[in-house]
């Protein structure tokens, strides 16, 4: 992974000093609440329901064991012994004291971490595929570009106060696991006809209260121009994006209002002015940054491991785990492993300090001391020898991270919701837990197969409900909590936004509704058809009928 030099280190150290002084001035009454707000937000600090919430960046989801131990340490010393991994590959602490945040940031700086631009109206953490660099279907490892973009966007003086937050995602694999079509800018890397790295540029996707699939405004951009093209997009947005209404301030609204063609035309006109300038990425700089992502020394191994095959045949629990939580790797004899942060009965994405230490230990022992955070809120060991899988599984079982549910119904994406977040209309974690409890039969879960169930506590959509095969959205009706259900959303190459099935439900009805949706699917599916495929084939109506039909009958009783 990328390692700081003196320049990177000085930047985060100077940031800590700057923020320490800003906090001091706020506490001394020299800065008003309104003046301090954008300053603390751009360091990741929200004022929340119970206490401030501190969001720490995990650039494109890559984390060293040493950094994870630091997070565990912070959880113990400054928080309540746990942390929450978010859907944007970041990590959040829910109970820090505002006065001690400068100390937390100083601790983070010692392991090359920070909270810079994890909130506020600026370019946020850049996200990518959690299997970048190891996925067999990868064409271009997008991480060096993500790092170059990270540096470029850090304290970009012109774009620090945009109309609204701005999220960039990059992907270099055939299958898009970074949901680039649902970001303010999505960059899809590929090899062009000449075999050169190029990118397609998507703009104006996003979730939130106005979900939108992005528009592709450029099909072919040579990689050297990635920064200048983003600069052109951001300049058009910074000038013309709405600032009078926060709900209409995202770039997707501007793109919709202008029309994607007109927006693209203005970006191209702006880009023509700055193209080939000093921000053109050089081969030398790309090679330098890329060197940090290539310095793996994989052993030459056979992919045929007899001992592994024996365990697979003899141990069903292990086989279940391998089926769901182990992923193919581009190097023979290696596999990527997802450690599930979704065991039944816990808040999705939460990890205790002890668990973080345990995972750091596993990363050191089995995976070059590194791990990744996925937007599905799980942790990944990306470089595990196939011959180590059985032993790793046993250790993961011991620390509670071996639930074999990756990609299944109980692998729920879920925001912190009304229990923690002051924006939320409704609680989300108890809903996730109730659904997990309803579907705790593992054989049934595996029979249901691939299913993304995503829960957001409000229309800000941190739980990605729009792209869940089943989406649950907390809504407020006359001061009480209700849940709107959508089906047919999807992430990836064929991204789509879910359709609302009908009137909302009370919290205790939600698990039953999910069950009805699953029953409809089981009754209607053809062989090999996933839930999303069935929804796309037969439409929403049969699902709706089954859910509401019986509800109506019940009402007559």
């Amino acid at each position, binding site marked *: 992974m990328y390692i700081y030099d003196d320049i990177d280190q000085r930047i985060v150290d100077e940031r800590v000093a700057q923020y320490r002084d800003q906090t001091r001035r706020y506490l001394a009454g020299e800065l008003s609440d309104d003046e301090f707000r954008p300053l603390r937000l751009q360091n990741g600090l929200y004022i929340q329901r119970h206490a401030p919430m501190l969001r720490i960046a995990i650039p494109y989801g890559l984390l060293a064991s*040493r950094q994870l131990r630091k997070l565990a340490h912070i959880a113990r010393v400054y928080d309540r012994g746990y942390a929450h991994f978010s859907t944007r590959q970041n990590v959040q602490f829910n109970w820090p004291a505002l006065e001690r945040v400068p100390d937390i940031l100083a601790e983070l700086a010692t392991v090359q971490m920070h909270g810079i631009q994890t909130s506020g109206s600026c370019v946020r953490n850049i996200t990518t595929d959690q299997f970048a660099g190891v996925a067999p279907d990868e064409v271009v490892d997008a991480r060096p570009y993500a790092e170059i973009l990270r540096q470029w966007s850090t304290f970009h*003086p012109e774009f620090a106060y945009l109309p609204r937050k701005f999220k960039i995602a990059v992907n270099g694999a055939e299958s898009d696991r970074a949901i680039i079509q649902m970001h303010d800018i999505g960059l899809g890397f590929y090899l062009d006809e000449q075999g050169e790295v190029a990118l397609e540029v998507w703009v104006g996707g996003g979730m939130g209260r106005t979900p939108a699939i992005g528009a592709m405004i450029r099909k072919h951009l040579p990689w050297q121009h990635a920064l200048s093209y983003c600069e052109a997009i951001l300049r058009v947005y910074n000038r013309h994006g709405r600032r009078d209404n926060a709900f209409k301030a995202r770039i997707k609204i501007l793109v919709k209002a202008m029309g994607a063609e007109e927006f693209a035309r203005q970006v191209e006109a702006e880009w023509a002015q700055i193209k080939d300038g*000093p921000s053109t990425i050089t081969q030398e700089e790309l090679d330098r940054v890329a*060197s940090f992502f290539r310095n793996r020394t994989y052993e030459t191994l056979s992919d045929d491991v007899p001992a592994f095959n024996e365990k697979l045949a003899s141990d069903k629990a292990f086989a279940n785990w391998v089926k769901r939580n182990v992923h193919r790797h581009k190097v023979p004899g290696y596999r990527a492993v997802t450690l599930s942060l979704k065991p039944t009965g816990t808040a999705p994405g939460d990890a205790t300090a002890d668990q973080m230490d345990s995972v750091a230990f596993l990363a050191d022992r089995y995976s070059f001391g590194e791990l990744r955070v996925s937007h599905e809120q799980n942790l990944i060991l990306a470089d595990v020898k196939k011959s180590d899988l059985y032993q790793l599984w046993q250790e993961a079982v011991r620390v509670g991270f071996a639930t074999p549910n990756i990609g299944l119904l109980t692998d729920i994406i879920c925001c912190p919701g009304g229990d923690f977040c002051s924006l939320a209309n409704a609680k989300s974690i108890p809903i996730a837990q109730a659904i997990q409890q309803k579907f705790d039969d593992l054989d049934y879960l595996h029979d249901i197969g691939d299913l993304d169930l995503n829960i957001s506590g409000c229309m800000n959509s941190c739980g990605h409900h729009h792209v869940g095969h089943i989406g649950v959205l907390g809504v407020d009706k006359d001061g009480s909590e209700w849940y709107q259900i959508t089906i047919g959303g999807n992430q990836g190459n064929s991204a789509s936004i879910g359709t609302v099935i009908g009137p909302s439900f009370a919290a205790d009805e939600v698990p039953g509704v999910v069950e009805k949706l699953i029953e409809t699917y089981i009754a209607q599916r053809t062989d090999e058809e996933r839930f999303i495929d069935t929804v796309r084939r037969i439409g929403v109506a049969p699902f709706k009928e089954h859910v509401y039909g019986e509800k109506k009958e019940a009402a007559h009783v």
Partner: protein
Amino acid sequence: MSKLIRNNAVVQDDWTVVQLAAPAEETVRKQAGKVVIFKLTGEQAASAEQVAGTLIPATGKVIVPLAVWQARKKELASRLAAGEVGLWLETFELVEDLVASVPDLNSLPVIAVHFPRPVDGRGFTIATMLRTRFGYRNEIRAIGDVLRDQLFYMKRCGFNAYAIRADRSAEEALASLRDFSEPYQGAVDNPLPVWRRHARVAAAHAVTVGRTPASHEDEVD
């Protein structure tokens, strides 16, 4: 009176910023962006009455609102020639309109950008475009809600003068211009990104994550 920082020093300001006359109560006209014609930005455009009613001091150096300048060029022509007229614009006004309003942009000794709120980031693009697109060489001044915490970014975007709010220390604000010593990206003040300024370390020579390499046992506590 606000205090002025110009070129890294606190100085006496010999310019008067001319304020637009207050709008009549019932004025509800809104500015429809000229480029973005599909929406109302919600910002008040100056009315003809406001422009006509704006009081410009008879003598001395004045920074006048763009809208006033556009409508009343004739009465200011001789003072412009004498180098005593500057312009200021709101962040929602288009920099292209300002550029088009004078034959020679550099005949203006000062252009000021009014920040209605510290977080209105359009001013950063306005300054950047004045410097890089339109070749403006004279003073670009930040006026309005100017706080020290935005100064470093302003400087990087081509501002070189800052009217610090009267209730804040200009001396402390001056220090914040040095908050960061080596920024990553190119900007107006230095167009070169960091990798064109310095030879940077590649992986083979990098140390490790964290300043003090140590075995992981030391970290657990």
